[in-house]
Structures are given as structure tokens and as C-alpha cells.
């Protein structure tokens, strides 16, 4: 019996040794497997390449996107801080920055921002009016007329926007959203802006000016300095 068990163990050991000895090498197996699988379907390799290139595009795209966002936000901040004039290439960025600031600021701070923007519009109008049109050459008369028309249109547009800002302040006053202590300051500032607008920019009062003046009289009658 013991001899039989010994024989079996020897047999088993021999078989294990044989199997080890006759095993294909891992290197060859991997090589052969790859060759075989590539012959079946080379597509996954393409997919891997595509995935790699997609990853690259995605990374570059993301990088470009954030780069653009950084540059654009820089332009917005720059345009807002330097208060670029009407017609400047960054003017639209400044207006965009203003709309964002209005959205972000709490309601209590909105009247002062509207006031600041109304003042900006006034300055822009003044800047446009102050631009002298070269009138030396007679052949340029037609162009000058055209420029005057454009200028008036721009001023009218800015004036409209300025009065919109002022109306927003009045609506805040009407809704009692401004502290009584601040109303007096705001009212006097608005009066100053309106006086400036009427004196320097228009000979005949416009519809917007009249509306703003009426609202000023109604809402700020008791707060205005003599």
C-alpha cells in the first residue's frame, strides 16, 4: 500500500515537472495572443487611438475654453475699471460687466450702482457731444451730416439708458427699498445728474428728461437741497 502511494506521488511529481517543462513562455504567449487578436479585429486599436486623440482634443479644448474665459473676464474687468468710452472696442464688455454687477449686487446696493451707471452714461454723452467734427474740406460736408446724425442717435440712445437707470432708482425709492438716511443723498445726486444733462446736452427737454424730472419732484420733493 505504501509503495503504491509512493508511486502515485512520484507519478504526480513527474507530471507536474513535465507540465512546467513544456509550458509555453509567457513572452511568446503574449506576442502570439496580440498577433491573433489583431488579426481578428484591429478596430479596438483604432478605438484606443481615437480615444487617445479624443482625450487630447478634450484636454486642449478645455484648456482653450478656460483660457478664453480668463481673457474675456480680464477684458470685462479692464473695461469696467477704466470706464472706457462709447465707441471703444471694449465698450460692450463694459456694459456686460455692468449687467453682471447689477445681477450680483444685493438689492440694497442696487440704487447706488444704478446711479453710478447713470453718471457713466452722462459722461459718455458728454464725450460724444464734445467730439469736434473736422469741417475743413467742403467735400466732407455730406459725411459730416451723416456723422452728426449718428452722433445724435448715439446720444439719444445713451440718454434713454441713463434715464432707465434713474427710473430704476425711483422705483426703489417708491418701494421703500432705500434707507431714509440715504434717500436724501441719492435724490440730490440724481438732481445733479439731471441738471447736468439738461444744461449741457439738450436745448429742448426730451420726453425722458421730463419724465425723470416729474418723478424727482414727486419722490424727492422733501429731500432736495435748496
Amino acid at each position, binding site marked *: 500500500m505504501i509503495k503504491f502511494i509512493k*508511486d502515485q506521488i*512520484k*507519478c504526480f511529481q*513527474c*507530471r507536474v*515537472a*513535465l*507540465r512546467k*517543462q*513544456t*509550458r*509555453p513562455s509567457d513572452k*511568446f*504567449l503574449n506576442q*502570439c*495572443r496580440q*498577433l*491573433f*487578436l489583431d*488579426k*481578428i*479585429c484591429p*478596430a*479596438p486599436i483604432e478605438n484606443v487611438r481615437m480615444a487617445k486623440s479624443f482625450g487630447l482634443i478634450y484636454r486642449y479644448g478645455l484648456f482653450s475654453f478656460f483660457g478664453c474665459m480668463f481673457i474675456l473676464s480680464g477684458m470685462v474687468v479692464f473695461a469696467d475699471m477704466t470706464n472706457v468710452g462709447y465707441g471703444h472696442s471694449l465698450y460692450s464688455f463694459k456694459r456686460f460687466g455692468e449687467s453682471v454687477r447689477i445681477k450680483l449686487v444685493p438689492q440694497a446696493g442696487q440704487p447706488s450702482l444704478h446711479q453710478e451707471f447713470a453718471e457713466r452714461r452722462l459722461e459718455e454723452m458728454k464725450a460724444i457731444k464734445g467730439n469736434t467734427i473736422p469741417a475743413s474740406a467742403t467735400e466732407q460736408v455730406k459725411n459730416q451730416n451723416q456723422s452728426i446724425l449718428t452722433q445724435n442717435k448715439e446720444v439719444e440712445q445713451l440718454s434713454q439708458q441713463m434715464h432707465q437707470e434713474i427710473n430704476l432708482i425711483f422705483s426703489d425709492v417708491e418701494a421703500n427699498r432705500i434707507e431714509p438716511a440715504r434717500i436724501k443723498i441719492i435724490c440730490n445726486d440724481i438732481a445733479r445728474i439731471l441738471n447736468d444733462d439738461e444744461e449741457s446736452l439738450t436745448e429742448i427737454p426730451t420726453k425722458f428728461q421730463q419724465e425723470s424730472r416729474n418723478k424727482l419732484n414727486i419722490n424727492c420733493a422733501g429731500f432736495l437741497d435748496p
Partner: protein
Amino acid sequence: MNDAFNEIAHKLKNGDRQAGEVIFNKFSAPIYRYFLVKTLSRETAEDLMQEVFLKVVDKIQTFDENLGSFSGWIWQVAKNSLKDYWRKKKALPLTDYALAAKEKKDFFDGKNDPAKEIKMLEIEDLIKDFSEEEQEVFSLHYLSDLPYKNISKMLEKSESSLRVLIHRMNKKIKKLLI
């Protein structure tokens, strides 16, 4: 290696890489050992095995599940490859026989262990004494440890006759080893 491989072969026909991987993992080692026993050369066994798997991809469209099992089919491809190899081998010029003899010698290298080397050389002699059928069974049963059922399918032999064959071989091997 049962009929479940027919389903995998069907996937392989449609270019499924995973199916290919399953088939390779299952058949590569037994086929390699089969060639190793038959040719007594690692290099030749490697070349032949690679050739078999490339042939499988080329000819998989001709495989019909209704006519037989995939295991039997792939085994037939391996046998045909070996036949082709022998045919080419016979056409070797005289000068190449030295190389062929060296190839045979590198089969059972004892890896610097003289005792092991002697044993392996004895086994090599034993394999030489085996009939073609016995060599196949030796590689599949002793080296690849495949069950009777699968071997019988591959070699298209009944299980009972396979058992008798293995019993006879066991006696021969025991004589040598013990």
C-alpha cells in the same frame, strides 16, 4: 472544451476580440504542447502554434457549427499544420539536417540540472517509442491535463478506447519513471 465553444466560435466569426481571447487562452497551451511532443523543438512548436491561430482567423468562416464541435475543428487545423510541417521538413536539403537535429535536442533541456536532463532524455526516448495516437494522448492527457471527454472529442475517439489507451501508456511511463 465542450460544445460551448461553438457559440464562442460564432462570435469569433463576427470579429469578436473577446471570443478570440477566450479561445486563445483555452487552446494555446494544449496545442503548443502537442506540437512540442510531436516535433521535440520549442521553436518549431511556437511557429506552428502561431500558424494555427492565424489559420483559425483565416478559415473561421468555413467552420460550420452543425457539422461538428469547434474543439474538433481547431484540433484538425493543428493536425493539418503539423502534416504540412512534416511535408516541408522532408524537402529539407541535407545541410539543414544538422540544424533539425539541434532543434530536437533543445526540447528537454535540463536547465543545468544533470539528473533532470537524464530524466527528460528518457522521456524523449519514450515519446519517440509512442505511436502517433499515443503521442497525441500523452500531450493532451499528461501534459495539458485535459479530461477524457474533451480528448475523445478532439481525437474523435470513444472514451472507453481512450481509457484503454491511457492505461497502456501509464504502464509504459511507470516502467520508465519508477
